[in-house]
């Protein structure tokens, strides 16, 4: 499923089981359970999915199907400062693609990858609804508006 192998500690397993219990171990709450797990662990590797599978009594294949269907869920860890570039229509027509290219160039990574030191990861998303600020870039929870390719270096410098 994934090349990353992790070992869950006992408290991690207990956490996941606890989440499942808090949703009454109801298989229909799978997506809410996955949200809680991803919020806690940052991503959803196969090992976590296996524990959820036991907790909710849903085949792990089905969980994998759900995790890979929705773009919000990820099976690989994100960087310390995840960078997301909005490629919604409003941002696109105001030059978001050029901003994305600049991030790729500066960080030397493609969309969906992390830098070697795991400091930054790059992703694109569709519309955060802040079209007045287009093009929009998110670094962690911080929003940058009206970003031009020339601003990219300065944004990255803030996280050095």
């Amino acid at each position: 499923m994934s090349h990353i192998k992790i070992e869950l500690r006992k408290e991690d397993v207990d956490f996941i089981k606890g989440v499942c219990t808090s949703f009454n171990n109801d298989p229909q709450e799978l997506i809410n359970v996955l949200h809680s797990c991803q919020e806690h662990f940052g991503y959803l590797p196969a090992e976590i999915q296996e524990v959820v599978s036991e907790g909710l009594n849903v085949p792990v294949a089905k969980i994998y199907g759900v995790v890979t269907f929705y773009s919000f869920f990820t099976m690989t860890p994100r960087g310390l400062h995840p960078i997301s570039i909005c490629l919604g229509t409003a941002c696109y027509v105001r030059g978001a693609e050029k901003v994305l290219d600049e991030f790729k160039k500066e960080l030397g990574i493609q969309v969906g990858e992390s830098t070697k030191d795991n400091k930054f990861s790059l992703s694109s998303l569709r519309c955060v609804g802040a079209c007045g600020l287009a093009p929009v870039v998110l670094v962690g929870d911080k929003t940058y508006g009206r970003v031009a390719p020339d601003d990219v270096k300065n944004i990255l410098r803030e996280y050095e």
Partner: protein
Amino acid sequence: MSKYSMHLLVCGGTGCHAAESDAIVCNLRDELEAKGLNETVQVILTGCFGFCEKGPIVKVMPDNTFYVQVKPEDAQTIVEEHIIKGRKVTSLLYRDPKTKEPVADSKHMGFFKKQMRIALRNCGFINPENIDEYIARDGYAALGKVLSEMTPDEVIKLVKDSGQRGRGGAGFSTGLKWELARRNVSDEKYVVCNADEGDPGAFMDRSVLEGDPHSILEAMAICGYSIGASNGLIYIRAEYPLAIQRLKTAIKQAKEYGLLGNDIFGTGFNFDITLKYGAGAFVCGEETALIHSMEGLRGEPTLKPPFPAESGYRGKPTNVNNVETYASIPAIILKGAAWFSSIGTEKSKGTKVFALAGKINNVGLIEVPMGTTLREVIFEIGGGIRNGKKFKGVQTGGPSGGCLTEKHLDTPIDFDNLIAAGSMMGSGAMIVLDEDDCMVSMAKYFLEFTVEESCGKCAPCRIGNKRLHELLGQICEGKGVLSDLDRLKNMSLVIKDTALCGLGQTSPNPVLSMLDNFRDEFIAHITHKKCPAGQCRSLLEYIVNAENCVGCTACARVCPVNAISGMRKEIHKIDSAICIKCGACMEKCKFDAIYIS
């Protein structure tokens, strides 16, 4: 609210929030406290005013002064000048783009003049985290009226008579939908609010949820009473953290006040609302896909019938409406069907919220009566095209809609006229394009979106859209042939006819409308290998301007494919057959000697 003589309303919508409106609120409160005015002037973080272009916004009431692009450090000036000395801070006022004169009162701003706010009636007026302010503006009065004075059939008749059609895209009659759900007998039914606003460029649902969450809760309870449901579910995008937080607060407050829960208003009616989170799948805006997603499954649509009104969430009758549809319901109940149906056109009643974005001066959220023309929306409310460029088109309905052009500008906007013009209402996103936008690239962009968001269940959408995207890609790279245009058209028509759900059936719309309206541009790409808008990189030609070139060799040294020739101190030349259009030479040249044709 009476003890305060003045209110400072600060926009707390996502756009302004991102631009530090929180810090503005803090600074204003600190300033007022320092001046001993915190008992007479109240600072309120409200929902979106709609004028996102000039955010963050601070509005002073009761005099309606509208300050734009306020920075946290402006708090002191606003308090000292406006509040204490009674002088408006001219530098922060909105300036009319034509006369350059400052406009003090928001009522006189072009942006607000033609608007009529029903769904957005409370956005920007109340503190969305305070239920009392909602109640003060007739909040929950409609629920009270329905529960104490009306039978469920009377409510449904009223909603039907109002002529309201669903604001999510398809435009199905709201009252009829409710009636179908009511007719199906079951021990349990569900009321669902579709808040999975996936259409890029649309942010009206988010603004309503952030600015007026109680209106949605109230309308869902009214719907629950009408169809006989006691459970409500809001399916909301996980990408909208602020809206989720405000909804949670609102649900908690409504429960405390006994406006949700058991025995509401002592009438024996029970209604509860829970939140369900989306996880980033555009197709989940389709109601059957949405229901599957709420059940913890992949959000794949299923064939209708059965409609959700017969068999929806957990196999029970379910009514799904969009956020904006619900937002108008309390107003319709209180003011009556005749009032609502007096607004709008013959077949599209009421108002519609549009999200204006793209190459337009006033990016923002507007609400206008149905039947307003595109010209009024784009040039009067929207303030025209940015940087004095020429209007080229407007994409309505997002990736499912089409592009309307100059010739459609005077068409009154309603559900049927937009379809007749080759587009659709969709959720109400309007992306304005100017002369710099390449229409072939735009069509390719929308197809890229559809390809990424297709759930993969049916072949026409999964495979057909991929092929459309490839053909458009080839045209953008100058590798297209004229017969591709017929292939694009035929394939689009087949996908429309055969795809399983609304996503696939509408996905070729951008291609068809771009082909209809901008055929010349496609031909320019194919026959002349030129992109008239200068957007398609493969079709650009980098040329040395002999007048500026000093022969420094900087460009030749940076060229990764050795496409530039020329001796030192001689004019250089770019061989376009070798050139890969990376643009490195142009970036390197200090003498502006390289340009793109």
